[in-house]
């Protein structure tokens, strides 16, 4: 089977029962993606496929051949962190760090959803083309990513700080 992971083409010979999560962790050594429940309930295994977030524990690897898979390792590195990774450190958006890669991957895709105008259960005006970055809008959209240490406040602050800043820069560039 051939996979495209973090812009690299990778061949792997795995059981058809293997989840995308186990492929990453047990077969490819990409252990940044975490297993918290293996049931799609905690979000620790969130990765991006063609820019959309999925729970990789509920995905069979065999179905994700030739798709663009992005994991935390592809988002940024210790020497070259993604702005959201840096903001998680600055705003203390984690304690034990186990749910963190999933939170970060989830947030990256979530921002894309907001920008594309996809409504959430809390979006009041479905006709709006530009949905606001309110705290509750982000909380609702991030509620599939559990954090048992309770770093939720820091996570929301990190997301808001990163994307409020980016949005401001984009507006400036457009002007």
């Amino acid at each position: 089977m051939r996979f495209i992971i973090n812009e690299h083409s990778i061949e792997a010979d795995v059981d058809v029962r293997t989840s995308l999560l186990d492929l990453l962790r047990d077969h490819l050594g990409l252990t940044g993606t975490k297993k918290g429940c293996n049931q799609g309930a905690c979000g620790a295994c969130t990765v991006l496929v063609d820019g959309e977030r999925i729970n990789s524990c509920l995905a069979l690897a065999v179905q994700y051949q030739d798709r663009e898979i992005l994991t935390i390792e592809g988002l940024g590195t210790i020497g070259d962190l993604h702005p959201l990774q840096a903001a998680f450190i600055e705003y203390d958006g984690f304690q034990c760090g186990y749910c963190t890669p999933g939170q970060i991957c989830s947030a990256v895709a979530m921002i894309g959803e907001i920008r594309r105008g996809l409504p959430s259960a809390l979006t009041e005006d479905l006709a709006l083309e530009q949905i606001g970055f309110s705290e509750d809008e982000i909380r609702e959209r991030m509620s599939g990513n559990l954090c048992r240490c309770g770093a939720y406040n820091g996570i929301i602050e990190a997301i808001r700080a990163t994307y409020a800043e980016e949005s401001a820069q984009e507006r400036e560039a457009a002007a």
Partner: protein
Amino acid sequence: MSILDSAKQAMMGAIVRLTPDAPPDPLIGRHGAVGSQLSRIDGPLKVAGKARFAAEVPYDDLLFAAVLFSRVARGRITSLDTSGAKAAPGVALVMTYQNAPRMGAPKIMGESPMAGGPSNLPVMQDDRIHWNGQPVAVVLAETQEQADYAKSLIRIAYEVEPAITSFEAAKAHAHPPESVLGEPPALETGDAEAALAEAAFRVDNLYRTPRHNHNAIELHAVTVVWDDGSLTIHDASQMVHQTAWTIADMFGIGEDKVRVISPFVGGGFGGKCMWYHQVLAAAASKLAERPVRLVLSREGVFRSVGGRTCTEQRVALGAKADGTLAALIHTGVVAMTTHNSCPEQFSFPARHLYAADAIKLAQEVADMDMLANTFMRAPGESVGTFALESAIDELAIAMNIDPIELRRRCEPEKDPTSGAEFSSRHIIEAYRRGGERFGWHRRNPVPRSTRDGEWLIGHGVATATYPYYRMPGAGARITLSADGHALVQIATHEMGMGTATVQVQHAADRLGLPIHQVSFEYGDTTLPMGTIAGGSNQTASVVAAVRAASDALFDELLRLAGNSSPLAGLKADELEARDGGLVSMQDPTRAENYAAILKRAGRDELAIEASAPPPIEVQKYSMHSYGAQFCEVRVNETTGETRVSRFVGSFDTGRILNPKTAASQFRGGIIMGLGLALTEETMFDERTGRIMNPSLAEYHVPVHLDVPHIEVIWNDIPDPHSPLGLHGIGEIGITGVGAAVANAIFNATGKRIRELPITLDKLL
């Protein structure tokens, strides 16, 4: 406790009280790295997905494990058919009691300083079943998929025996435990029942709290390997040394033959001590003669790693007309097993919080056939404060006075049960500051009087409290290099508390070095023994050990400095560490840096190991942390849904070492408290003894949208009797939250709920 033990303890107490105080830590008043908002030093590793957890350690030739759990609560295995599993593709081993290596039963935690067993039950040694969910077989295969499939082919038959799986039935035979964490299970001063009967105001109610599970997001996992009779366990552990010792004891090998390594733990909360999976992985690996990775499924965690037990508590308060207490009664019973010792010390808050003419406290346990229960974040205090602080609120309402004013009137001068002086107690100040921040004076005390459309709004408050502990036995090693770098080593634990970050800050100040010149190694039994990460003791214990090592280091540096040094003739207590060296406090011109001392002595490095002095302070003083938890709720009149809209936690926990990580610790505790108040319950089938909701889909921990911005503030008043003036803060955050929420819900709706969690059905 026997009469002899009591007499011995009383005598020891008298001796300790006469012992003079140790001089306060000289760093208490000093500002440096300690107190700064240093970001977590392991932050880059964690956000980049490069922090390596126990299930992520690579080995060639690794086998993957799957564990099968019993489906009956009590009985014996009558037949075992593993032939299908053994024949399945990729299977290397099927282990049951029939072929498991012979091992001794684990020594229970608390039995001796090194014992860490969760119970004293043998692990897969016989056909006996003791709880519904007991591991009965382990399959090892080349891949996880093969192991999971082969497990499904095992056929087991049981002879079922009657089991006690009903708490109601078990309560009929409840009895006092031998002790409650070394304290007597019952205490009585005066005749509390008589005082209650005669009191001007009375409340007397039962409160119930359910079972809880820690549910750290990281699944319990180990990667183990045997090499020439020595065992290495990559574990997710909050007690590396006790785990190593206990497993070595079970296998009958020397404790130096077992190494436990645990640099990162994906959440612990009391749940990541020693359980059965470490032993099973080690045993299976021994048989298969290959490295093994065992990751429990989420269901497996519920089946084989204990949680917090259920409680039923009576709190009765009798007040005099002036608002002081004539009687305080806090009694109750919790479920436990006959093979562990963890009686959920719910009566501890009432031992220290309020002055009362007569006090009656008593804890009992009801023996059940279930998985051994264990410590979970603020064991005792979390659920004990729900009952006690709900009752205080009920009494204030009965007396028509403000609940904060009632607490002020009941504030004791000395510890109400031990008579000891408080080392540092500024609870009223915490209430004052918290009330101001929350706007308590604006609340309407009349229940069901504030609404916003269909939402009823209410405000509640409760006291948080947790003991200060410092555990004996911690040692640390400091290695000073000729380039002025210090390496601090101690086998302590980092589960997200910020241990490594704060200890680097501490060592930098202690040694007078910049932060980047200090590194900290932990989580490995080859390092000097620390203490378990429990009882919020770790920071105080590690700081005391590192201080002892630095004192010894300074003595040795002075000796090495010799007569040609500007420091010649000075004693260690005349010096302070500053700017990478030692300086005379009297005459700052007399100074020499570490590099110069080592160079002249011809040394590349200097390593010193020392142990912390015994924690006399906890025997001499009543040492506790406090807080005031303020909560605003919105309760939907139609659906009964409760939303927490505002929360302020105001804490009195000694000196805060790092405001950034401390705020996260407090918030994390409060958020777990919101789960305890509103959603969390491990559902136990009283017919079969089986946990019915063993998943994160059905055990409801708070999610992003359940959690508002939580404000946390603190007094930051150092405790003169603790290292650095600090108190541990990992657990206090969860205490008081259950009652603050319940009290706010009463204020919103006029409904008093005395059974957690406060779900929608209870408010309709």
